[in-house]
């Protein structure tokens, strides 16, 4: 019981990211705590879209035998002309859960006060982010895809981290992004994405080392590029 990508080929064309995954195999078993580590140019959004069925692979298959969340805390589903409570009701209807209980649970955890019932446009960014985070983790899934844990007010973050820890005890967690520290504290295995390839590690230390080497390599490449062009170096160092 898991989410599997089998021999997947996908051309990623997201903004400046231009790369192709070929013959990609990925397995996220039931109850695992998996990190998908990669930089912005690693095309992780495309991989998450494939896992969530938001997009189809060019070739190969994606198998899902369990329920999976969307990428939490993505805010793109939020209707800005409706209140946070109305957005929560939409999700409750979509996922066939008890509307009143779900709406009340988010209100209780988020402590939004009056912001819960006014148009999203008028809410603070922190309230919106916190809502998107809570909306995802308050629904019962077998796999939770988390793309950012630093949401909401500073005071909420510790509470959010504790909730995610608790979540990991009853469901599978997939942490996506470049936050190695969070990955090391939450996950026990990882895929590191680089140049259209994914390397699996069941040891988080080794995964973190690999990822650190990618970061170091990129910094070196930037330095080399700068070093070879003195005019560019002068421009960058210019005091405006």
């Amino acid at each position: 019981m898991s989410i599997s990508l089998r021999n997947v080929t996908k051309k990623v064309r997201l903004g400046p990211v231009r790369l192709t995954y070929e013959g990609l195999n990925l397995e996220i078993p039931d109850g695992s705590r998996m990190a998908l580590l990669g930089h912005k140019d690693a095309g992780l959004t495309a991989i998450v879209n494939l896992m969530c069925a938001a997009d189809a692979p060019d070739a190969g298959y994606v198998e899902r035998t369990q329920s999976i969340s969307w990428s939490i805390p993505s805010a793109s589903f939020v209707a800005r002309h409706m209140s946070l409570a109305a957005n929560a009701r939409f999700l409750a209807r979509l996922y066939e859960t008890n509307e009143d209980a779900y709406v009340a649970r988010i209100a209780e955890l988020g402590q939004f006060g009056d912001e819960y019932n006014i148009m999203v446009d008028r809410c603070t960014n922190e309230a919106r982010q916190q809502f998107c985070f809570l909306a995802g983790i308050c629904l019962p899934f077998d796999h939770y895809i988390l793309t950012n844990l630093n949401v909401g007010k500073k005071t909420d973050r510790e509470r959010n981290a504790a909730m995610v820890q608790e979540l990991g005890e009853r469901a599978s967690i997939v942490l996506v992004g470049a936050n190695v520290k969070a990955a090391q504290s939450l996950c026990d295995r990882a895929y590191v994405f680089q140049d259209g390839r994914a390397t699996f590690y069941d040891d988080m230390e080794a995964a973190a080392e690999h990822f650190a080497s990618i970061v170091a390599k990129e910094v070196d490449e930037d330095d080399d590029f700068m070093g070879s062009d003195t005019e560019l170096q002068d421009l960058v160092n210019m005091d405006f």
Partner: protein
Amino acid sequence: MFADIRTQLNVIAALAIRDLQNLMKGYNYGFAWALLEPIMFIGLMRVARSAFKGLTPPNMPPSTFLILGIVPFYMYVQVIGSVYKAVSTQDQLLQFPRVTPVDIAIASAISDFCIYFTLYTLFLTFFSIYEGAWPPQNALEVFSVFILLWAVGVALGFVVGTAARVFPPLKQFISYYNLVNRMLGGMLFVITMLPSSLWPYFTWNPILHCMEMLRDGWFVTYTSPVADPAYVLEWLLGLLLLGLSLERFQRRVPYI
């Protein structure tokens, strides 16, 4: 299997309710515009008909006659556009694993149906009572044809929406198609107002059959000589088969 069907129906219901709630987002342009556009058009046509007497069939009250054709036609155009948009572009709601483009398309079409059906019922009731054309001769026929026209719009939306994913300029052709249909689709006339030598050409258009059936169903004084529901159903099945097949085969085609 029934649990899956129920889940999918719940997804469509949730999306349709959200669509209807979102209509209010621009107060000036949301729900109000859906009402205002046909009202303005009906008003304009009513004035034009009064100015050029003789263009309206003498045995049918003019406002009821116009509403019977214009509101369903606007719904048809709107439904094609909504389904086209849902199928040809990558909606943000697709990030939810249980939402598919077909769900979004059907939900948008349902919300359009709700708006125009409300509008249709209100206008028709008011104007037909005012003009003495109440009650309809066959309300069930009118209601069925309204649904049939909606379904043809959904099916055509699937065909053009999926085709536009590989050929985006198709969008321009939809505007031309709607323009031609506006003139020749029977929205503003009944077939008996034309010379019978032209009937075989006009009756190729399934929309004309729908318009004929709507007038036939409402007015005691009019019996359409050409309306054929089976012909419209054939079109509907053909378009649905083509549209859903294209949608199925294009799932791996990336969005442009």
